């Protein structure tokens, strides 16, 4: 699963810590999602997308073979 979180976060000059605080998770989880080590659950994906004012599919990109 690819995500645009890092790109969106940088565009808004947000740190991982700030994003984690805003969506109610930990910095380590944001790091893991950004690096693709961990796939966010639907509620967390929804909260992240909502925070950026986008749809889930605009933030989380499913690859063809997934």
């Amino acid at each position, binding site marked *: 699963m690819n995500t645009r979180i890092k790109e969106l976060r940088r565009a808004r000059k947000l740190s991982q810590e700030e994003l984690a605080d805003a969506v109610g*998770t930990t910095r*380590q989880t944001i790091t893991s999602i950004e690096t693709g080590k*961990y796939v966010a659950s639907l509620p967390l994906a929804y909260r992240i997308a909502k925070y950026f004012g986008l749809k889930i599919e605009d933030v989380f990109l499913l690859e063809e073979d997934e």
Partner: protein
Amino acid sequence: MMEKGLAAFRKTYRRRVVITCVLEFIQLVVVLAAFGLEMSGESAMPASRMMGSMLLITLLITGKSANPLVLMDQEKLKEAYLEEMDERNVAIRAKAGQPVVQWLSVGMIMICCLLLLLLDLVQMEKALRIDLWTAILTLYVTAIVQVGISWALKKYWEKRM
């Protein structure tokens, strides 16, 4: 939404701290009783040091998940809440068998403590004493090993996830 969750977590955490403190107090009484027996020369075997190590290990196992100081500091409580409720941490803990393994180990160590006191207090045949002693050691070592494995698994999954 988080404030509501935090308030509920405070209640859960307080309950957990109370239960842990009661259990550790019982364990401390058992350790002191064994120490008293040793001092008065009534003890059949010196068990208080081993019980003391058991109390220390119980404190180490429960220290992070039931720390009374966390209840006094809102920031620490928030950190503990995120640490415990964060979905990645929940997944990692589940893969490491926590918190079941932790509490099971605490229970096993408490049983060891009580059996040691029994061994200290009650006169019994030598063969039975050896059997009981072997059972205590096996239970104690198993508790420590399973906590160690669980801890190692947690570290492994923290790196993988």
